[in-house]
């Protein structure tokens, strides 16, 4: 009898858990599925009330329209150039910097990175906007790449400090005793060991650069828009047509969603490494 009651309670707990998990993930799933649904329906179905949930028949016309009307190909290339350059440059300076900070235990330098994270993105923009205007660089992709370093460098440095601090120092010390220079100890010992950390830093820096909207909207001209800015512009010009808008939104965020699904372990590791310190 007691055994039975215990079983029932356990079953109840199980059902409660499944119900809670379902309640937790359904808002996330619903918004993305609704975005997909809007992007695959024609305008009549998108404006129907009650709403049409399953596209019937699904159409790719919205995607065709987005690429035909808005030069999305160019904006996709712009976004790739900006995010790859900003991530690459950040790795180039940020990985050694993370190593240097971890080795010298310079916590004050690490604090600087934290304060940088606290500063609203807009506050960097006013001085940098004036600087680029003065240098005559507005209208090219260079200022956008440079401002994206504001996002990517702190992420890379922060994640790498954590990883290098976690590495055992003995192997490098052995290398130094054997006559390696500190550069060689870094290049041939610490760097290969820190490869998982570099993967994490790369993914996070890339995603946050790709997602950035605020720098682009101020600095980008007609030719130099990144994808998030281009999508926002679809809104201002075609406020009424939801299909192309949802299709454009999906084009921007699709790659990020796929990357997240594939690399969720690395992403979780990177986000929590930075958070709990």
């Amino acid at each position: 009898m007691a055994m039975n009651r215990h079983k029932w309670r356990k079953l109840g707990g199980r059902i409660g858990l499944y119900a809670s998990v379902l309640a937790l993930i359904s808002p996330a799933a619903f918004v993305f599925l609704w975005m997909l649904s809007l992007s695959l329906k024609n305008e009549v179905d998108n404006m129907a009330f009650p709403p049409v949930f399953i596209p019937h028949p699904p159409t790719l016309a919205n995607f065709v329209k987005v690429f035909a009307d808005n030069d999305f190909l160019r904006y996709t290339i712009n976004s790739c150039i900006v995010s790859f350059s900003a991530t690459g440059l950040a790795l180039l300076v940020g990985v050694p910097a993370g190593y240097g900070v971890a080795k010298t235990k310079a916590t004050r330098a690490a604090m600087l990175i934290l304060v940088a994270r606290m500063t609203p993105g807009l506050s960097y923009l006013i001085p940098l906007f004036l600087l680029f205007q003065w240098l005559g660089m507005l209208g090219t992709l260079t200022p956008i790449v440079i401002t994206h370093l504001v996002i990517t460098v702190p992420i890379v440095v922060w994640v790498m400090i954590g990883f290098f601090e976690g590495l055992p120092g003995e192997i490098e010390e052995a290398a130094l005793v054997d006559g390696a220079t500190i550069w060689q100890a870094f290049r041939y010992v610490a760097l290969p060991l820190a490869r998982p950390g570099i993967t994490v830093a790369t993914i996070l820096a890339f995603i946050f650069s790709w997602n950035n909207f605020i720098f682009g909207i101020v600095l980008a001209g007609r030719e130099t828009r990144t994808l998030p800015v281009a999508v926002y512009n679809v809104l201002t010009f075609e406020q009424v047509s939801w299909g192309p808008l949802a299709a454009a939104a999906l084009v921007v965020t699709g790659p990020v969603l796929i990357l997240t699904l594939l690399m969720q372990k690395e992403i979780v590791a990177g986000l929590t490494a930075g958070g709990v310190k």
Partner: protein
Amino acid sequence: MATTLTAAATGTRPGVRRPTPGRNYARRYWAFAAPGAAVVLAVIVFPWLFTIVMSLHEWQPGAGTSWVGAANYLQLFSDADFGWAILRTLYFTVLAVAAPVVLGIAAAVCFHKRFPLRGLARTIFILPMMATPVAIALVWMMMFHPQFGVLNYILTSLGLPPSEWTYSAATVIPTLVMVETWQWTPLVMLIVLGGLASLPIDPYEAAKIDGASGWQTFRHISLPLLWPFIVVAMVIRTIDALKSFDVIYVITQGGPGTASTTMNIFLYQQAFSYYHLGYASAVVVVFFAVILAISLVLLGLRQRAKWQ
């Protein structure tokens, strides 16, 4: 011994006094940080300092600049629009910290348990925070449409009255908080989940033997042990909520009227709609002081938690 070995191995001239190894290297490791430091100085520290200088000037592109001292700040403190923007930001922030923190703790407790397809469920759950904010803001905007939006359809089919969502001054902030909660609860969940994974198991076994209920165990064992993690989550949430821009700008642009003009939107308008760059710089300085002050207060909470 080790010192002499290294000296011999690296071929340093004998007779040169070498400091202890730790010291010796500490200075040289700075070379690694130098390029990174140069970039941080150029794109992060320079803007900070330049902002302070600009905030003391009347600065409009094309119109030249002139030193005005504290005039921008004085104007700011008598600017009712700015006062309202601060109040709105605080209203938004309190809600946009409380809701994700409470939900995030609950979600972490769920995801800490083992169940089939947990990895997939967790990945779906964290998608909102990785997705491009502009893209999700657009989708929410379409869902909020009072006439054709899917949310009002869902409400009415559940027998609830439809809402005005972002189209009314009374509901716009709570609605934006809902989007922010949807987006950022996963980050709180991940931080608290990391905390749960690090908890010792002994107190739980003792509680089980003593016949404590699930809620009692959570309330008296998990919650106090998790407190440092929760405070970190609160600090991060507070900073991000104060800074929130993309979603608000895309969905409402501060409207209807000025009902959702938070500090960041106000700043954007001053700087890049009206080009009052000096005035906007003063907003940045005050804004940053607010963020710093609130963060320090919350971090003080964390210190206290550590001492207890």
